[in-house]
């Protein structure tokens, strides 16, 4: 049995993380889990990014005592991924703070309830009866 080339394995892994993250983001309901799913997806795409500079057998782009040790990998994706990770951290911090806030405001960490309550709130602020009275079925559909 021949193993697939390393880069394909790595690529597949990165894409899988991305997909797992996105699927979790769409299918999840718990807000904290959604934030985690987001972190997974970001990790996947960050891996993808750093993979774009990868070449097998090359060295890290650091000069040792002023010498080039051999063929080196592309330094740019490494810098980019550093930036991307930091961006991800900032956004996740914001997301968690918001989750805390939402839990305080609506008493829930469920996306479904959040949506319902949020829209009720928006409608109420606009002086409208809740939407369920107009077009929606009387009871909320089962999940």
């Amino acid at each position, binding site marked *: 049995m021949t193993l697939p*080339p*390393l*880069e*394909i394995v*790595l*690529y*597949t892994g990165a*894409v*899988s993380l*991305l*997909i797992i993250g*996105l*699927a979790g983001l*769409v*299918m999840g309901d718990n807000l904290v889990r959604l934030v985690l799913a987001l972190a997974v997806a970001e990790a996947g795409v960050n891996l993808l990014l750093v*993979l*774009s*500079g*990868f*070449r*097998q057998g090359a060295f*890290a*782009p*650091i*000069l*040792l*005592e*002023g010498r080039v040790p051999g063929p*080196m990998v*592309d*330094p*740019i*994706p*490494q*810098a*980019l991924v*550093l*930036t991307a990770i*930091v*961006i991800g*951290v*900032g*956004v996740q*911090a*914001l997301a*968690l*703070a*918001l989750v*805390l*806030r939402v*839990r*305080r405001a609506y*008493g*829930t960490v469920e996306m479904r309830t959040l949506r319902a309550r949020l829209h009720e709130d928006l409608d109420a602020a606009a002086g409208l009866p809740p939407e369920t009275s107009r077009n929606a079925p009387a009871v909320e559909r089962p*999940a």
Partner: protein
Amino acid sequence: MRNFTSLLFAGGLGFFLLVLAADLPVGAAPMVAGEGILGQGPEAVGAANLVTAVVLAYRGIDTLGELSILFAAAAGVGLILSGMRRRADQRPDPEGGFILLAAADLLFPLLVIVGLYIVLHGHLTPGGGFQGGVILAAAFFLPLLGRPGDSLNHAVVNWVEGLAGGAFVLIGLWALAVKGDFLAPMLGKGALGSLFSAGTLPLLYIAVGLKVGAEIAGLMSTLQETEAAEP
């Protein structure tokens, strides 16, 4: 049903991305700009760690942007949670046990030293302001985990982050004033691989390290000070 559709679409996206792999030169991507940097980076910037050369010199404004994102996140979190600070009369979480307290006290100086080392050697070895900054933040946050009643002085944190960020921009503006290019490398390049080399890069990394440390410590302590909201 919804879950099935979601899975179907997620799988579809995965399928398309994997199909793309056939046409993507993964592992053998053309190195165009990267090769240029590998070629001229050491001379132009003077940093042995070429990633640092990219982060702080070639793509310095990216780094400024990412610092700003951290700043925006910290400011945003402060703003969002501003009404949720624990009140003085509320009981904080119980203090940590002996192991946590002792470890926090013991690790604090070590973490500070390691953090500073990583910050200062960012232009020579793997690491730099971001990584070192996070370690510094951990150093200051760890004691708070042990003693939830304490809190960081947010005014100091604000000033540190403000001044460190300001220093980064000011170094850039200094270059603009002297050399005519924002964030151009300044000062002598020094001997490649020595601590005092790569011109302003270490200075920039110190600013980054302080700013990241202050932001993350501030962020985490704000979150920690937030009352565990019982709905």
